[in-house]
């Protein structure tokens, strides 16, 4: 086996094999787990860097397949596939993952179960690395499931909190709903290509448009679950019950980006103008608007960030949904990477703040923190600027390009909605920032906030730097991702006046945010009172959660469960017992003739004889017997 192949395996194999040791070594001394876990991911990152610079940039695609079930006629391929797309993902996952784990060293250092925490974080990161480097849909699915498992374990890490236990369950079940679509998608891919499409490079062997549509939509069903898009987005706000670094990992480096990657990876199934790209586009757009609105009324700092993730992932799907071939992949992946940097930054700064103010998550209880924690809040400021797409920051280059591309490609409705989404993004992200940073501290904890330790600040500073400078890589990034893929349908066109629309909307949003939340004001209250119905609709998250919990889970599934259980006990159990009783009772009746008295038996025999003779006589009379 070639060295490059071995190294590619090691990127995810090393932390995957290493994670039990991370937990195990913690039984000696808990801090060892932190060091071992951090270094494992660092090594993965370094290997990725090496492969990236010595192979990928030279145009070498590393590919290796083996049969998972050797000596079986049914071929289930497994292996690694490291092209530009995988490597750019792998770089981001290992780099951002490393920074988050480094931050966790400071953040989790008091936790008594931190050895388990670090083990699970390492497994989480390695599963995601395995996912992006998989050479077959089947192997991708295996890591897909492991990512889901890790999120379940980590969201429920503080298992003794009832909310955490419940949120973990919710995340598991909701993403499981998506996963089964993925399974069906793989099944369909096997059927329509006679097994060839199991490997990534064999996806092209699904030729017919309707077959592509079925496979593509089923895979997208899986992507919706993992990437928290409407209608399966409900797990991610609840998932905030886990430690904040877990949220950072889920939202930036792993998990939610998996769905976007899956669609980008299988993009040959999403040709321009097909039904499937249309579905992706409008699911993405709908999700952006919905989560943008909810983000405006939520008060939990982590949940605001969660809804912002949902909406930013929506942009990635919208970019893919334009169906512009490699151009779409470039747009989506660039947004994905930029988002990874600034979202990790925002979560880590949020974690830093929560660490300082004793885990009070309500933004109304914060305020005036800029003076108390200057570095952290400056980091958050950069994150917010990047998130809302302020010119010059990463989010500007990534998001506005998507909005512009939708205009250039002629999706007018999508363009309008995406631009409004940008306005909402600016609004909610600056609402968050102004409430946290400006004004006076609104609680005792906020008054006594203090800056975090250096180990938590280093990742913040690095991520902040990337959120600022990432923009300069834009053109290079697009052409890098597009190499090796099929050429795009449309190139990125030169700037025109319409491109200013999103920027202007963003600036207006920022201004309104300052006017409403940057200073003492009663405007938000007045607006809420003025549009009471709309406000309640948004405040209740469009009643989607309520619908799932009350109608589907409780009335639907639990109700059905109660009915089935009743049927099981009364109908089936009753029927079986009744048939048992039937035999028992007939036995009881017949038993009575077994008295054991010889005289009685003689009598019965006599009666029987008489009856038999009588019958014989009757038969002879009738003529049956002669």
């Amino acid at each position, binding site marked *: 086996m070639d060295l490059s192949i071995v190294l590619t395996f090691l990127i995810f194999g090393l932390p995957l094999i290493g994670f039990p040791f991370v937990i195990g070594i913690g039984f000696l001394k808990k801090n060892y787990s932190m060091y071992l876990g951090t270094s494992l991911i660092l090594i993965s990152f370094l290997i990725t860097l090496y492969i990236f610079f010595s192979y990928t940039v030279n145009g070498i695609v590393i590919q290796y397949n083996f049969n998972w079930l050797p000596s079986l006629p*049914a071929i289930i391929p497994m292996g690694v596939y490291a092209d530009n797309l995988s490597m750019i993902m792998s770089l981001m996952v290992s780099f951002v993952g490393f920074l988050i784990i480094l931050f966790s060293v400071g953040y989790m250092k008091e936790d008594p179960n931190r050895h388990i925490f670090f083990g699970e974080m390492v497994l989480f990161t390695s599963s995601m690395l395995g996912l992006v480097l998989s050479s077959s849909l089947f192997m991708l699915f295996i890591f897909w499931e492991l990512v889901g498992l890790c999120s379940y374990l980590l969201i429920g890490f503080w298992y003794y909190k009832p909310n955490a236990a419940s949120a973990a*369950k919710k995340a598991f079940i909701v993403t499981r709903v998506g996963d089964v679509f993925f*399974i069906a998608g793989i099944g369909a891919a096997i059927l329509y290509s006679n097994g060839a499409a199991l490997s990534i490079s064999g996806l092209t062997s699904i030729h017919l448009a309707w077959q592509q549509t079925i496979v593509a939509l089923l895979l997208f069903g899986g992507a919706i679950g993992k990437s928290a898009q409407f209608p399966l987005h409900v797990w991610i706000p609840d998932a905030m019950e886990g430690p904040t670094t877990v949220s950072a990992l889920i939202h930036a480096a792993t998990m939610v980006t998996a769905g976007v990657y899956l669609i980008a990876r299988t993009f040959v199934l999403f040709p321009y103008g097909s039904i499937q790209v249309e579905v992706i586009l409008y699911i993405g757009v709908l999700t952006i608007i919905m989560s943008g609105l909810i983000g405006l009324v939520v008060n939990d700092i982590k949940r605001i960030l969660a809804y912002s993730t949902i909406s930013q992932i929506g942009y990635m799907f919208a970019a893919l949904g334009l169906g512009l071939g490699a151009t779409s992949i470039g747009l989506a992946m660039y947004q994905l990477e930029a988002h990874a940097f600034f979202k990790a930054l925002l979560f880590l700064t949020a974690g830093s703040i929560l660490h300082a103010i004793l885990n009070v998550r309500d933004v109304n209880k914060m305020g005036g923190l800029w003076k108390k924690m200057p570095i952290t809040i400056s980091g958050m400021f950069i994150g917010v600027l990047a998130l809302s797409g302020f010119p010059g920051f990463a989010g500007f280059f990534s998001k506005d390009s998507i909005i512009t591309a939708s205009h250039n490609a002629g999706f007018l409705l999508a363009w309008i909605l995406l631009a409004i989404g940008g306005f909402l993004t600016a609004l909610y992200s600056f609402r968050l920032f102004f409430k946290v940073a400006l004004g006076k501290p609104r609680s005792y904890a906020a008054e006594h906030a203090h800056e975090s330790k250096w180990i938590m600040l280093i990742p913040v500073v690095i991520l902040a730097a990337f959120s600022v400078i990432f923009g300069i890589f834009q053109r290079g990034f697009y052409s890098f991702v597009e190499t090796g893929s099929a050429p795009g349908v449309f190139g990125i066109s030169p700037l025109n006046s319409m491109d200013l629309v999103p920027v202007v909307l963003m600036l207006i949003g920022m201004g309104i945010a300052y006017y409403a939340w940057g200073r003492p004001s009663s405007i938000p209250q007045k607006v809420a009172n003025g549009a009471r119905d709309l406000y309640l609709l948004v405040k209740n998250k469009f009643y989607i959660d309520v619908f799932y919990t009350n109608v589907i889970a409780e009335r639907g599934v639990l109700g059905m469960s109660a009915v089935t259980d009743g049927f099981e006990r009364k109908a089936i159990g009753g029927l079986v017992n009744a048939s048992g009783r039937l035999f028992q009772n007939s036995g009881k009746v017949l038993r009575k003739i077994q008295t054991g008295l010889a005289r009685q038996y003689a009598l019965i025999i006599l009666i029987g004889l008489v009856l038999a003779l009588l019958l014989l006589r009757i038969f002879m009379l009738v003529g049956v017997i002669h």
Partner: protein
Amino acid sequence: MFQLSYLLLILALIIIASAAVRGKAARYLTILFSAIVFIFVVTNNMTMTNFYYGTLSILTLSFQLNFVSSILLILISFIGIFIPLRYSSSPGFFVLLQFLLFSLVGIFTTRDFILFYIFWEMVLIPSFFVIGIWGGKSKNYAAMKFFIYTHVGSVFMLLGIFTMYFTEGASNFSMATLISGIGSVPMAYQSFVIFGFLFAFLIKLPTIPLHSWLPDAYVEAPSEGTVFISSLLSKMGAFGLLVIFSPIYMASSFAGSTAVPIALIVLGIFSLSYSALVALYQKDMKRMMSYTSIGHMSFITIAVGGFLYLNGANPLASQLLYYGAVFQLISHGIIIAMIFALVDTLEKAAGTRQIPSLGGLARKLPVLSFLILAAFLASVAIPGFSGFVGEISILLGSYAVLKYYLIFVLVGVVLTASYHVFALQRTIFGPYNEFLGNITARKQDLLVALFPLAIIFILGIYPALVFHIFNIHVIQFLGGIH
């Protein structure tokens, strides 16, 4: 080559020795017993081996070690080692257990219908006594129900065997002869044979609505009894479907017709969702897990239905279904054994197995909680655990048969995952139930639980171990079916 006749002789001698000696010896002899079964399978190189010892009147002393029986014999030896390690039951129990394992070896290897029927009935005896003697509160009810219910199924199977014998005018009861001749008899008789076998196997599997013996038997049996009943007895039905029923069906005039396969698939899908819904409502963990067993076995029904439906049309999907089903046999056998053993450990530690009385056990019983978590994850078929391999193979293969209807199977998969994590949330996670006080689990029990867990992991990560056995026989076996 290790002769099967020697194996049966040695095993019989060990049973007699176990019955004769006093004290703990029977327990250790069970381990020896199982080790010998294991050695037998391994030394025959797990290949397809035929053993023929002539005829005895109408009996044909013909046996076969094929890939399904190899795997089931390995499962037998696993259970035969796991139970004595885990439970220190009374010597009588171990003698009965050996008797049961002996009968199972017979069932899985014989190629004669009369011997098959005799072994099939022999299994009932130890199970009946184990439930009836060491069972819980309503043990008599459960034992009776179990015995009568499964016996009714066997009677139909026996009638099916006789129908084949007399209508074909055969001179003996050899499976090969009777199965190959089934296509030549009148349709009415063929239908009856197929119905008889199907009825017996579906009761044993069990599939809903023929399952009502199962929850009572599992719940009332002592934990060690539940372990072997759930792990091994359900395999009799599965073995029957895969190795007896499928060849009969494919040799009959029904081959290629879709009514029976569709019925099987529908029953399987129904069983999966139905068992998950009932399980969701259970408060007793042991009862809940007995429905898990039904859910796992319903994948076998779906796989066999799909396999017969395809009738060789799509080799890739057929293989995925058939091998997936066989893999599911060993995987389920080990996972369910581990689960019931853990439920017992939990009950001993906490004094209850009622879910509402538990909660937050991860704090006081971290190791046990980890093991329960791992077993549950294996049960919901998370990759890395053996449950994944069988389930995913069957799901992927069944797309070729079911297409959009696969959604109904997937609903069952989600429901299964739901009640598992819902149970976890209420037992090992959440706030600790302070009424439980200060509790600890027996260390030996936890240690022994690592044994099945290790196998579950190894098979999950490297399923090629089992698939290697498949490969040797596949061509011969499938060749035999057509």
